[in-house]
């Protein structure tokens, strides 16, 4: 909008100069004709330019009319300028969002998404909005966003916890500007932070719930409260929230769910879930159970490997006292008997999702699944692959349980995985196909910069030696063939009919799930809306 205004304002002072004579009515069409002839001169006149021309015409007419009334062209110009200034001054924080939408980075020859998934937002689109508001974003948020987007922090619960911790920092460092109150201004300030946070990855359901809660808490603070005190109470409340909704809830869930793990049973789990990891540790360390655990894993995040690493790094003293990984060093100095829990008590069987069906499911007693969210229609929204495992276990009459804090409950309804989902970076599936490690990612800004540099280099090369390039092209097939061996799809973006789909979540129907363990008790999936209603009332 601003830009357009500027264009018309430029047009205004010019046009009257052309038509300052008394033959205004004739000159205007003449100018139009001029424009038309120009158009025929160079046929590349784009639509936009045509529009500009028309605008000039109109401005000329209007100016002529105004002049006829008695306003001089100089005055008109002044008026226009003052209008623009007004516009500019109103571009405060409230307008930032609008600006965000305008500053889209143009898709630099990027891949379009296959038609059935074209409604999902790509990483490029998400990142497009980041640069323009980064100046009002707290550095802690910047670093958190980076950790989200590079999968350093992954999983619904850790993401929620880290976000709340960072919000505490943001609130502590926050200073209410003059002429406004904390209650009114802080919400907006936080919104910008969240807006930026979204560029890393979309908010999880639990994060959305927590943000809603926090905003409500902020609005509850009375205007008379001193800033320092208000900030302290908010931080305290966040601490309480973390303790109540995440840590204690987790504890209750673990105690409830641990009844399903008996000595000698075989448990299957998929990927990594914070609460399930704690559950397995609790069963071994606190309850002294011995059981088999089948960890199913999948590309590209290899979260099962993370669960594996965390379990292997947990030590245990069979003499009774449980020892956590944090006190590992002390434990090793005190008693020699301390050893990883995976040595004797927890027999781990690691498989990739493709090998699952063959024979492994035959002696599984129970399946534990993590959750990203429970939707109101009883469906489980979780890491992609969960639905597959739930389906297969259901078909073999293996009970499927899911552990889910009530923070993750959402009043959304969804019927299939394709309609709403998160699109991850397609390159994760192409790079390092044999690494068996989660993708090592650069930040988006860095990627953009590298791309830009490469493009500049290329254009320079083109200018410098066109002949040489042709020679290179002729000789290029050989190195290409070599590249084929390691990653055949290195240049997949240039293959026009090829697409790669990397979605993050899928939806498990309620029929497959026997039980949802929450801190409010164990329920069937059909009870999710009941919980939501009760939860809202309290």
């Amino acid at each position: 909008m601003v830009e357009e205004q500027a264009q018309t304002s430029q047009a205004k002072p010019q046009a009257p100069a052309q038509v300052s004579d008394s033959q205004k009515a004739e000159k205007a069409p003449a100018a139009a004709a001029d424009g038309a002839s120009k158009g025929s001169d160079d046929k590349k006149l784009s639509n936009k330019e045509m529009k500009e021309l028309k605008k000039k015409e109109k401005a000329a007419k209007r100016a002529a009319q105004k002049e006829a009334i008695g306003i001089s062209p100089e005055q008109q110009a002044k008026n226009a300028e003052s209008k623009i200034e007004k516009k500019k001054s109103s571009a405060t924080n409230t307008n930032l969002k609008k600006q965000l939408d305008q500053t889209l980075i143009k898709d630099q020859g990027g891949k379009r998404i296959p038609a059935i998934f074209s409604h999902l937002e790509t990483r490029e689109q998400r990142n497009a909005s980041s640069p323009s508001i980064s100046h009002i974003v707290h550095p802690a948020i910047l670093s958190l966003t980076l950790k989200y987007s590079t999968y350093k922090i992954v999983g619904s619960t850790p993401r929620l916890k880290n976000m709340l911790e960072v919000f505490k920092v943001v609130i502590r460092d926050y200073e209410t500007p003059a002429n406004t109150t904390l209650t009114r201004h802080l919400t907006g300030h936080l919104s910008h932070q969240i807006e930026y946070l979204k560029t890393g990855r979309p908010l999880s359901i639990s994060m959305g719930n927590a943000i809603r809660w926090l905003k409500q808490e902020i609005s509850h603070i009375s205007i008379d409260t001193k800033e320092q005190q208000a900030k302290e109470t908010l931080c305290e409340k966040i601490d309480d929230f973390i303790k109540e909704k995440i840590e204690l809830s987790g504890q209750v869930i673990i105690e409830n769910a641990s009844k399903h793990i008996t000595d000698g049973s075989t448990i299957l789990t998929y990927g990594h879930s914070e609460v399930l990891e704690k559950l397995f540790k609790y069963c071994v360390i606190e309850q002294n159970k011995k059981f088999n655990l089948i960890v199913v894993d999948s590309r590209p995040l290899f979260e099962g490997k993370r669960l594996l690493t965390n379990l292997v790094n947990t030590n245990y003293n069979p003499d009774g006292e449980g020892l956590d990984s944090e006190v590992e060093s002390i434990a090793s100095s005190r008693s020699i008997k301390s050893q990883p829990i995976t040595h004797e008590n927890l027999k781990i069987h690691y498989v990739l999702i493709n090998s699952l069906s063959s024979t492994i499911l035959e002696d599984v007693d129970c399946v534990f699944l993590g959750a990203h969210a429970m939707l109101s229609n009883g469906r489980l929204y979780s890491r992609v692959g969960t639905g597959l495992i739930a389906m297969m276990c259901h078909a073999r009459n293996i009970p499927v349980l899911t552990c889910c804090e009530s923070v993750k409950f959402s009043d959304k309804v969804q019927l299939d995985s394709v309609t709403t989902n998160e699109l991850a970076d397609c390159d994760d599936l192409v790079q390092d196909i044999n690494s068996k490690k989660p993708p090592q990612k650069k930040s988006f800004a860095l990627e953009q910069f590298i791309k830009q540099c490469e493009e500049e280099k290329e254009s320079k090369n083109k200018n410098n030696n066109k002949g040489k390039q042709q020679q290179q092209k002729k000789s290029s097939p050989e190195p290409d063939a070599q590249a084929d061996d390691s990653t055949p799809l290195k240049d997949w973006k240039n293959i026009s009919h090829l697409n790669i789909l990397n979605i993050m979540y899928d939806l498990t129907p309620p029929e497959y799930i026997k039980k949802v363990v929450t801190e409010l008790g164990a329920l069937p999936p059909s009870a999710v809306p009941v919980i939501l209603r009760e939860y809202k009332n309290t």
Partner: protein
Amino acid sequence: MPNTVTGEIRSIIDPVVSSLKRHQIEGDKDIALAISHLLMKVISAARWTNPYDLIDLIREVGTILSSAYPRKIITGNVVRRVLALIRDEIETEHNENANTPMMSSMFSLLSTSNNENHKELHKQSKKQMSDLRSIIIQGIRDLVDEISNVNDGIETMSVDLIHDNEILLTPTPTSDTVLQFLIKARAKRKFTVLVTESFPNYIKEAQNFAKKLAEHKIETILVPDSTVYAVMSRVGKVIIGSSAVFANGGCMSNSGVSHVVECAKEHRTPVFALAGLYKLSPLYPFTRDDLIEVGNSGKALNYDDFKLVDNVELVTNALDDYISPDYIDIYITNVGGFAPSFIYRIVLDNYKTEDNTLE
């Protein structure tokens, strides 16, 4: 059984046996071709006076070959096909010589074949022997032709099975038959193909497969294996390749295929299995655990993660999957499409029940 495999024949089969053992011959088609060429050599090199001696020899060679690569069913299939060929030849000759009236099929099913009597009858002249030899070798040549042109017969059905703008999914990117089938279908139809990655064993093949499809102007989408359930609601048909088809209608395929077909069943998506005739086997999958070959577990969990490897009880990396007949709607072979329940008839047409066990 007398040891009929002489040193001469041993020297012919040994190189093939060792390359089978080392898994140097990959791909079902290549194995089938190698075996049939080998049998051709064996038959022309072997000295025999009685066709039943030849059968015994081939059976013994078959035993050696299938023990070289016990989980490949195709080796046995080819040997049995050749045996059936020889038996057919003997039968027609016998009928011509003896002019005995044709027995009813029911009767021959119930009667026990008493080879001993036949052996007495079949003291044949040298000329007849060499005739028989050339007929058998010609028969094997035909078999080789059939195996190498297997895709032609399958491809012709592609247009009947795929409609415009359909979304297909294939979890077997290793199958050349599937690739040719899709490429052929593209000539008349426009459609989208989802290809699963088949991590970790065939990921490179999957990427090459996707690339080839895209080069033939087929809209191709590569998806991770875990995404199958999420996208299945959009898929119109699932097309799988198979490495062996059993008489009960079940088949062997890549690992990961069985959960795809299970998903398809759950979503009521039809599943097509493509199989050349030579993949049909007269065996029944009684011990399913034995059918599945387990591969390098280092592909699932790197050995350099020694701390994990040390603490993990078991890492499994299955290479195959058994797919039960309930999950497959139609088999498409080079002799037409069949329901899984009908496969046993096709098997009976091509094999003799006497040869079901080679030993």
